[in-house]
């Protein structure tokens, strides 16, 4: 029963991890200078006003008491109320989550397609100029941070050749028949390809900016791992059977070479999700990252806590999924 065992074990450690994150986040952001009350004081407010508002938001209690209150709330699924938006934090962050997830998944798909293609072409032409060229492009893609790619893309595809939308997630004038916030998926399920195209046109640039560095990593790693696999006996054996190079790469090597790449892609994917913070801001995309920056600027403590914890949940979930995927793809673990 290794599958179930791994799942349970991972869920258990995940809980420990999240608890650690909760503690650290709570105390780190309490020492952030600039308190939310000072932010909402208009000219003319008095010290009494400060005290009054602090008490109203529960910020006057000792830190440890505040933590206790917050934690017991979290246990009951109540992450507190955002100071700036005056909405329950949980609802707010869950409302933005689908947008960020869709963006991240879109970016991941792009990265896998681009990186995978680069790896395959590079492996096919290993030792030749083709591989060298792919190495150079990979190196360059990795040396530019995603937000600079965002700027470049915005200039090229937003202004010079305005083919994609620069900001937002969907054209506001469209009537959306959706019941969930997963627009991209729901538009596919409802066969509304017009909406899907509009969503993709909005998502394309931020997703690509996020995808380029990851694509380079996937390309690099998968190529390396493919090249190693191509030297293994079972690949050699397949060649003697009369198969061409492409078939050998795709059919024999790829699946086994993907495994080591997978774990790293898992970690990198969490970095990519983390990267949405800046990219969403740049492209005014309505996700968690955009909200996170506002929350930090406004010192909306409960909201920051909620967002960081949600990110942590996503990250650990991604790692969990990667682990399970690894188990599924690796017959050795599946049946042992």
């Amino acid at each position, binding site marked *: 029963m290794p599958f179930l065992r791994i799942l349970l074990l991972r869920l258990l450690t995940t809980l420990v991890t999240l608890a650690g994150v909760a503690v650290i986040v709570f105390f780190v952001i309490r020492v952030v200078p600039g308190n939310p009350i000072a932010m909402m004081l208009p000219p003319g407010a008095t010290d009494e006003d400060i005290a009054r508002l602090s008490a109203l938001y529960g910020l006057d209690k000792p830190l440890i008491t505040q933590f206790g209150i917050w934690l017991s709330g979290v246990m009951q699924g109540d992450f507190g109320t955002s100071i700036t938006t005056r909405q329950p934090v949980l609802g707010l962050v869950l409302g933005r989550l689908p947008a960020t997830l869709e963006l991240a998944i879109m970016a991941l798909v792009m990265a896998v397609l681009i990186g995978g293609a680069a790896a395959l072409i590079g492996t096919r032409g290993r030792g030749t100029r083709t591989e060298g060229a792919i190495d150079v492009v990979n190196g360059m893609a990795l040396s530019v941070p995603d937000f600079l790619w965002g700027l470049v893309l915005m200039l090229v595809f937003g202004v010079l050749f305005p083919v994609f939308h620069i900001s937002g997630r969907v054209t506001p004038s469209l009537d959306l028949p959706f019941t969930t916030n997963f627009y991209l998926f729901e538009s596919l399920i409802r066969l509304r390809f017009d909406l899907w195209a509009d969503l993709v046109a909005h998502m394309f640039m931020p997703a690509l900016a996020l995808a380029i560095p990851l694509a380079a990593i996937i390309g690099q790693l998968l190529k390396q791992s493919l090249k190693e696999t191509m030297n293994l006996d079972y690949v050699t*054996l397949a*060649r003697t059977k009369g198969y061409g190079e492409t078939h050998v790469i795709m059919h024999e090597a790829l699946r*086994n070479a993907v495994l080591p790449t997978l774990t790293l892609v898992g970690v990198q994917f969490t970095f990519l999700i983390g990267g949405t913070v800046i990219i969403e801001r740049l492209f005014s995309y309505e996700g968690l990252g955009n909200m996170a920056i506002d929350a930090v600027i406004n010192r909306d403590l409960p909201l920051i806590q909620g967002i960081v914890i949600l990110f942590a949940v996503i990250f650990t979930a991604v790692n969990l999924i990667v682990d399970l995927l690894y188990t599924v793809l690796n*017959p050795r673990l599946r049946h042992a």
Partner: protein
Amino acid sequence: MSFLSIRNLSVRLKNGPPLLRRVSLDVAAGEVRGLVGESGAGKSMIGKAVLGILPPSVQITEGEIFLDGTDLLRLPPKESRRRIGASCALIPQDPLTALNPSHRIGPQITDRLVDILGWTRANADARARDLLAEVQIADPDRVLRSYPHELSGGMRQRILIASAFAAEPKLIVADEPTTALDVTVQKQILRLIAGMQARHGTALLFVTHDLGVVSKVCQRLSVLYSGLVVEDSTVPEFFASPSHAYSAALLAATPKYTDPDAGLHPVPEAVVNAVRAEVAAFDRGPAHG
């Protein structure tokens, strides 16, 4: 003409030293030829060159490889690959790494039949079952559905043998097929290979460093030193009286449990020096042209 005929085959590392020095040898249909030598002698290179699976760092500099009368090296790559796939097969050294861990056993035996030779899946499956029975695997159906890691080393080597014989090849290259196995298993596997080879009338190019093994399965053998063929004789001739000093010394160094003193005679330095000189002379002069 022999089914496989190698003429003056020279192979070298790119920007490096020669690995094979104008090797010529023949394998007649149904014949078993052993290729013997110490590590680095180039014995595996010959098998790889025949099957067209030389590593990219290695290049063929001269020579011909005739398979059933056609020079493989003159054919377009696709065509030579097709011919090799249709008439040759490989039994690799390490059964643990020679099966693709992510595919089930069944397709790994039948893929060539279906994809290259155009068999129907049903026919190929039936053939796979027969083959597994022939290599003495009980419960072939279960094994066909298994993944490699679920089977023992000996079992996997049997599967590889079955897979090699699947398309009734004319020539099989066995590259140290028992080196990774326990002696008791080795005996069974050697018996199996020899038995099947005899039954199917397949020619066999048997690469090994173990003269004991050669004496069990081969009819002819070539001894290599540093890419040079120093001896080419029939098995009985060789074990009775080796023609080259180096191969004689090699035979003397091979341990023999029946003789308490055997096995501790390293190849004498004089012999090594002589055979080295021979290689050096070969590299220098065009005498062999």
